[in-house]
């Protein structure tokens, strides 16, 4: 009886490993000891994983099944910088920008939990600015492809017509995620600045926004590998 009273009052020490999984699911308590918003963000990201994998898998399928040569991404996305021909130049810069933004976001979450309002706001706004830079560079890339190279969703002069549809669908959906993330980050950053989370008593929303932002970076890792490098 006293055992039950103890566990009800102090649920912290629970077993790890598979025993812990069984305990978490079967005990008379909330299964995941995280804020509900965080658990739901994870579930949303899980569903987003399925969406992006469906896109990348259909891209794989059309690329395997086409009898026409696939345009060489290394050449299609090359830039001439200061007179030299650099393959995938813009994509490399975009990757670095997104990784940098992931780093600043991780630090923002850290400062959030330390209740350092100024640093958290600044780092989140830097993250949003880098995200906006990424979207801007993507707009430039799309414009170059559509206007200069004549790539359309139904065809292009360089090879397999599926190249355009796969490219616009995958990078477009990712760019939409980045754009939504920029808005999301700015909203949360403003709330950090006005002390909303101090009044609420927790900075978990900053971490939840961070989860979304790192996921956007994560998706780009796969797009970079499968679409641009393959």
């Amino acid at each position, binding site marked *: 009886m006293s055992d039950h009273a103890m566990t009800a009052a102090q649920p912290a020490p629970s077993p790890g490993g598979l025993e812990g999984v069984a305990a978490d699911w079967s005990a008379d308590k909330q299964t995941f000891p995280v804020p509900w918003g965080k658990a739901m963000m994870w579930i949303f990201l899980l569903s987003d994983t*399925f969406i992006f994998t469906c896109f990348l*898998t259909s891209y794989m399928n059309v690329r395997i099944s086409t009898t026409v040569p696939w345009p060489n991404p290394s050449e299609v996305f090359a830039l001439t910088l200061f007179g030299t021909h650099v393959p995938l130049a813009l994509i490399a810069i975009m990757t670095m920008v997104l990784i940098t933004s992931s780093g600043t976001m991780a630090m923002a979450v850290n400062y959030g939990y330390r209740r350092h309002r100024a640093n958290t706001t600044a780092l989140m706004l830097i993250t949003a600015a880098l995200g906006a830079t990424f979207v801007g560079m993507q707009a430039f890339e799309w414009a170059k492809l559509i206007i200069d190279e004549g790539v359309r969703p139904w065809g292009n002069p360089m090879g397999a017509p599926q190249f355009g549809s796969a490219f616009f669908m995958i990078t477009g959906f990712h760019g939409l995620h980045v754009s939504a993330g920029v808005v999301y980050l700015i909203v949360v950053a403003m709330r950090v600045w006005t002390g909303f989370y101090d009044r609420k008593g927790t900075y978990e929303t900053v971490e939840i926004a961070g989860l979304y932002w790192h996921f956007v970076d994560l998706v780009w890792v796969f797009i970079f590998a499968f679409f641009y490098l393959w």
Partner: protein
Amino acid sequence: MEHTSSTHAVEGQQHPIKIYLWIWLLLFVFSAFSYLVDYLQLQGYLRWTLILTFMMLKAGFIVAIFMHLAWERLALKLVILVPPLCLLVLIALMAIEGDYTFLTRLAAFARS
């Protein structure tokens, strides 16, 4: 709920800034390496192995450290990591299907 404020659960994930900076640096290095794979025009199995290795390393570090999954309880880790395994089945099926379509196209539309 005040009594739990002493444990890690309430105030979330707190880790030294240093670990984030290290992972950040690692991600830069891995990205640079995977870009070099293309820049040096490595081809064949070496190319695919390197691309996939750097991709999995980057993805692993982002999920484990930046998204704090390494510090979550196993129950949550399993909920997040096990369902995507179904996607491997989808990828395998679509690869087989793609090969089949390719061969059918060769057989039906090949110009002699």
